[in-house]
């Protein structure tokens, strides 16, 4: 019984999809709403605005791939579905960034962790960014709708061993750990979420909001890059795009309203290429990453970290036990382990690396997501343009962040020994496998924390078009509309004035749900709910 493919079925029903293998789009297009991107923010926006009876067009740089294409192979998934083949890097190459670039955006390839925006984060925004209406109670109904729409709820299956080791180690140390809600329906527990869900269980934008919008007559341009906005008299007059293929022709899109949802890094870059107004120097600044450090350990028993739901247990102990604006705190989670990402992340070479690679089935990995953006010494990074117009994030790993890296590596090593590790290998170029907590602790206290010695990765890009209660505090107003351009909204993770402090997909769904409902009301006069 083959798995149905809702995308191929929709195409057969006559969805309006063009670009790449789906045929040349017209050179000029007029619509009510032009949306750049097709990820979390774009999907929710397209669903709500199409439901309001508006003619919606989505422009996606990446390809339209679906369950029939998702063969659970990294060598196919990374080039097809990720920005820069899953090797996007910050300017000094010290941080590798995983970000989606396909229909569905990062929601197609994320690991399904679904957290509401933490109250401490919202309180900080209210206090420091003039976002009075962003209280926990204000947003709760919008989160609740997103949870219903995307089947977000407790994951009732047992965690895989990689996650259960986090649970057991935390319990040994007396640290709180809990289960992660997931956006899945009928999940097969394959563990291949990062390569696209082959069974359509993950309730990504690819199988939920975007099909809904397409069924209502929305149009989708794929393999089409949004190059720049054309401004006239302080408004966007057109969006200029180009096919990504060798003979990509320019496409001119004229809309009543434009929604930028290309993801942090790409959204600010599009505004930079368009020379959008930026009177307060906020554009592309305060871009956050949740910098991630990793600790590998080898257990006596098989872990097989490639099997089962990739993320099902977390600990917020190192976030909740200290002030949000103190030394940088971190969230502990476990990552899925697959050959390519494991081989390129495992440090060193020769016999020592070979042994670490042979230990793959016994390897338990933890990661710590550092909560950046809440302290004066954590200003994040800045998006710049290269000479070819492509974006590059300059994110300096300063002493404030690196201090958090050291503390996080220490916490993870201690937890892994508590969970029964034979040895622990902090992912750092100067680290060795340590066979005791005492040895690991001593080594980590002495180890220099520096860019390109401490291995840092990121899967969460946030900020760069931050919300602000006044024009001097942000790029976008509390309703998501650009402070200087009133027919342009930003609806993606670039809105966040700080990092979230949790995997951000549900923060994008919930907050954009509210912004898109406001936009639907002002453009169509209609009250629309996501669920």
């Amino acid at each position: 019984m083959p798995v149905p493919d809702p995308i191929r079925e929709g195409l057969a029903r006559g969805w309006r999809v063009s670009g790449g293998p789906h045929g040349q789009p017209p050179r000029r297009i007029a619509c009510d709403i032009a949306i750049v991107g097709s990820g979390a923010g774009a999907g929710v926006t397209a669903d709500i605005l199409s439901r309001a009876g508006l003619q919606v067009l989505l422009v996606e740089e990446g390809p339209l791939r679906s369950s029939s294409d998702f063969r659970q192979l990294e060598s196919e998934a990374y080039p097809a579905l990720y920005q820069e083949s899953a090797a996007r890097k910050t300017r000094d190459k010290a941080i590798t960034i995983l970000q989606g670039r396909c229909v569905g955006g990062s929601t197609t390839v994320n690991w399904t962790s679904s957290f509401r925006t933490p109250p401490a984060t919202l309180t900080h925004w209210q206090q420091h960014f003039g976002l009075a209406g962003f209280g926990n109670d204000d947003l709760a109904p919008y989160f609740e709708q997103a949870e219903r729409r995307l089947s977000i709820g407790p994951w009732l299956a047992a965690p895989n061993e990689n996650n259960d080791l986090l649970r057991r180690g935390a319990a040994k140390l007396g640290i709180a750990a809990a289960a992660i809600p997931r956006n899945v329906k009928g999940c097969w527990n394959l563990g291949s979420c990062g390569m696209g869900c082959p069974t359509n269980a993950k309730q990504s934008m690819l199988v939920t909001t975007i099909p809904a919008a397409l069924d209502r007559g929305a149009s989708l341009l794929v393999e089409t890059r949004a190059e720049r906005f054309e401004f006239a008299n302080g408004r966007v007059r057109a969006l200029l795009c180009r096919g990504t293929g060798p003979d990509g022709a320019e496409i001119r899109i004229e809309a009543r309203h434009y929604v930028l949802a290309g993801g942090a890094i790409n959204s600010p870059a599009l505004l930079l290429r368009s020379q959008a107004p930026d009177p307060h120097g906020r554009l592309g600044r305060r871009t956050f990453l949740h910098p991630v450090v990793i600790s590998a350990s080898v257990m006596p028993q098989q872990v097989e970290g490639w099997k089962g739901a990739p993320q099902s247990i977390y600990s917020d102990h190192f976030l909740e036990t200290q002030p949000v604006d103190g030394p940088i705190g971190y969230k502990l989670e476990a990552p899925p382990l697959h050959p390519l990402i494991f081989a390129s992340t495992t440090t060193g070479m020769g016999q020592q690396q070979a042994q670490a690679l042979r230990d793959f089935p016994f390897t338990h990995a933890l990661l710590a997501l550092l909560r950046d953006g809440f302290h004066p010494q954590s200003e994040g990074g800045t998006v710049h343009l290269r000479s070819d117009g492509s974006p590059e994030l300059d994110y300096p790993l300063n002493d404030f962040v690196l201090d958090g890296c050291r503390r996080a590596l220490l916490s993870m090593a201690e937890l892994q020994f508590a969970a029964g590790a034979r040895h622990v290998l902090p992912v750092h170029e100067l680290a060795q496998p340590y066979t005791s907590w005492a040895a690991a602790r001593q080594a980590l206290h002495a180890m220099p924390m520096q860019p390109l010695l401490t291995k840092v990765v990121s899967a969460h890009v946030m900020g760069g078009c931050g919300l602000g209660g006044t024009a001097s505090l942000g790029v976008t107003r509390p309703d998501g509309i650009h402070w200087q351009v009133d027919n342009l909204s930003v609806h993606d993770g670039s809105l966040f004035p700080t990092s979230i402090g949790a995997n951000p997909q549900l923060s994008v769904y919930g907050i954009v749900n509210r912004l898109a409902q406001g936009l639907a009301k002002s453009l169509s006069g209609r009250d629309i709910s996501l669920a």
Partner: protein
Amino acid sequence: MRRRSWLKLGLGAAVVLAVGGGAAALVTPGLRDGKLAAESKPMMAAIGAAILDGVLPQAPAERATALSGLLARTDAVIATLPPHAQAELSQLLALLGTAAGRRALVGLDAPWPDAAVQDVQAALQDMRVSSLLLRRQAYQGLHDLVGGAYFSDAGTWQVLGYPGPVAV
């Protein structure tokens, strides 16, 4: 223009001066048509043999086959990189392909095809922990390229004990 993009690689003036062959490197790119140039292949094979020592098969014939597979898959990976990353990689390989660049950036005296595995490993280890950011960047770029390319073929997964994906 070429010169400016060259400097964007992060090359300090001292390194450019130390590498008298800089100008020569500019006319011998490390990549041609988005693939490893003929001149880059022995170098990538030597780097691959050093990084994957202990993973590659021991028997000479099988080892040679594994390394040629690595080079083919390296080309496949390079083809998926965006233009700016290809350009940087091309410059890096061009630089490492010159004797002056090999000595200055890698610290390796012997030409790539003649260098012993342990000499290449020692040179890479120096790059890995160098105080010069550029050398660390180059090491990590090479390390990740080799690991990612080699294990992109299911035939290599046995060493990892990875059974491959569950059939759907």
